[in-house]
């Protein structure tokens, strides 16, 4: 077993143990953070590994969330198939967006993805008759269970979030070790060179975006079922920026960076908002410090200082 795999398993073991140690409030927080970290991991696959700076990932998260929520509300699906539907919706919307947006690059790619996400948000509002617009959909407790497992209660919810996070993290680790992962990183590092080694840039980037959308969709779907609410606010620009901030804070292009970033950012807001209404100021200051002293994020900083093996 390599150091990297050991580290990842240790993180998962610590999260498993935390379930028995944490008070109820933090317990729910960590479950939420793990789901958001899956979203950020997906973002990181596109941005951190492949170099695709998207400003539209809220669309993929919301696609997963709404496919699951509407599946339960309108078509009476049970939670398990609704979750699968959400995951597929995230991937499908990401692929469709990619086919069009990947004709551009750089700043244009940012703008086009932002535009698609805004169009998605407005679409949700437009079909308010089904989506209940801003107000959103509250998913009943009865619909939030898989078999006899009631995902609206603390312990099963925590384990469901941990299960999703574990699968996401280990697949992410496997991806970074695979030939596809190497080709994705190559695309980030030097696209022209990769093209001249026989890689089709469009194909590699579309694949990365599709995997990214799969993660975002899974996270959105899980969020709907675990926390029982589906709302248009999750499709706003804020939810495209959040995973970007998590990834920048934790370390772009590191497997554990998204989780670390989500954890720190969540508690930074949580704690600072206990002291001041200007908690966004604290977040801004933290990001400034990050950009000045560790532009590669926390784990990027660690990697540059000796831990080169960190995936």
């Amino acid at each position: 077993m390599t150091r990297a795999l050991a580290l990842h398993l240790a993180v998962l073991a610590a999260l498993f143990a935390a379930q028995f140690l944490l008070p109820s409030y933090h317990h729910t927080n960590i479950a939420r953070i793990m789901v958001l970290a899956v979203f950020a991991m997906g973002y990181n696959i596109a941005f951190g590994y492949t170099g695709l700076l998207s400003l539209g990932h809220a669309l993929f998260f919301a696609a997963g969330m709404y496919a699951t929520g509407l599946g339960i509300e309108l078509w009476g699906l049970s939670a398990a198939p609704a979750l699968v539907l959400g995951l597929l919706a995230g991937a499908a919307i990401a692929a469709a967006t990619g086919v069009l947006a990947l004709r551009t690059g750089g700043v244009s790619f940012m703008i086009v993805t932002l535009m698609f996400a805004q169009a998605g948000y407005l679409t949700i509002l437009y079909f308010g008759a089904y989506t209940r617009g801003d107000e959103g959909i509250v998913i009943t407790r009865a619909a939030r269970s898989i078999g006899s497992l009631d995902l609206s209660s603390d312990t099963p919810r925590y384990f469901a979030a941990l299960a999703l996070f574990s699968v996401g993290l280990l697949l992410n680790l496997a991806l970074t070790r695979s030939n596809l992962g190497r080709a994705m990183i190559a695309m980030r590092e030097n696209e022209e060179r990769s093209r001249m080694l026989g890689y089709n840039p469009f194909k590699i980037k579309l694949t990365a975006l599709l995997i990214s959308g799969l993660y975002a969709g899974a996270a959105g779907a899980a969020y709907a079922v675990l926390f029982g609410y589906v709302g248009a606010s999750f499709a706003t620009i804020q939810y495209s920026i959040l995973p970007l901030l998590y990834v920048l804070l934790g370390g772009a292009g590191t497997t554990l960076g998204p989780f670390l970033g989500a954890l720190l950012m969540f508690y930074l807001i949580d704690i600072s908002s206990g002291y001041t209404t200007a908690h966004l100021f604290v977040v801004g200051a933290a990001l400034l410090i990050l950009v000045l002293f560790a532009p590669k994020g926390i784990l990027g900083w660690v990697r540059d200082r000796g831990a080169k093996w960190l995936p």
Partner: protein
Amino acid sequence: MAAMILSAPLLSARGLTKHYDGIKAVETVDFDLTAGQVHALIGPNGAGKTTFVSLLSGRITPSAGTIQFDGADITRLPAHSRVARGIAYTFQITSIYANLPVFDNVALAIQRQGSTNLRAKTMAALARVGLDGRADQNAGTLAYGHQRLLEIAMGLSMAPKLLILDEPTQGLANAEIDAFNTLIREVTPQTTVLLIEHNMDVVMDLADQITVLSFGETLATGTPAEIRSNPAVQAAYLGG
């Protein structure tokens, strides 16, 4: 020229042209490449050499003309598809993955050909250019000469039918140039080599055929001896 007609050329370009806003970078060039040979492309700076091989490799699209490779028309194929058919290109300005380990640089070239025994094949390819001891080092930290060798190793690792080398010996020390010459002799005739080169010693040493470009047009094609005694070439390039 008779010999070239006897065996079907691996690559042939007809009327290949590239204009940039009225500047004729490459003008109606006819060009044949015989399989198994080392073919050098020479000419003064700005003669259109890099533009010409970029047209062959698909990095840029021609304004007019056709390119046949290995019995198929590849004029409209994107670069990555040409690579898949066996055309490898190494960059004039070293274009490696500076932030990735040396190993990954070559592994990226090899995994495209199939991913069995990736580690062993990559180490063997690195050993061929003497870089196997530096596999874990980031490519950007290599000395310049080693970066050039890595670039060549990436080209060779693609097991191409045609290897296009754009000024491979630029900036190399004499001992490194000798090693390069040996390497090229080893890979031919299995691999056909198209070589852009300013170092005339290397050209005369390696080339079976030489084409001279000047102002985007073919000035002459022939064996090294023919080119050396060609009065037009002497006037335009070798300085009379």
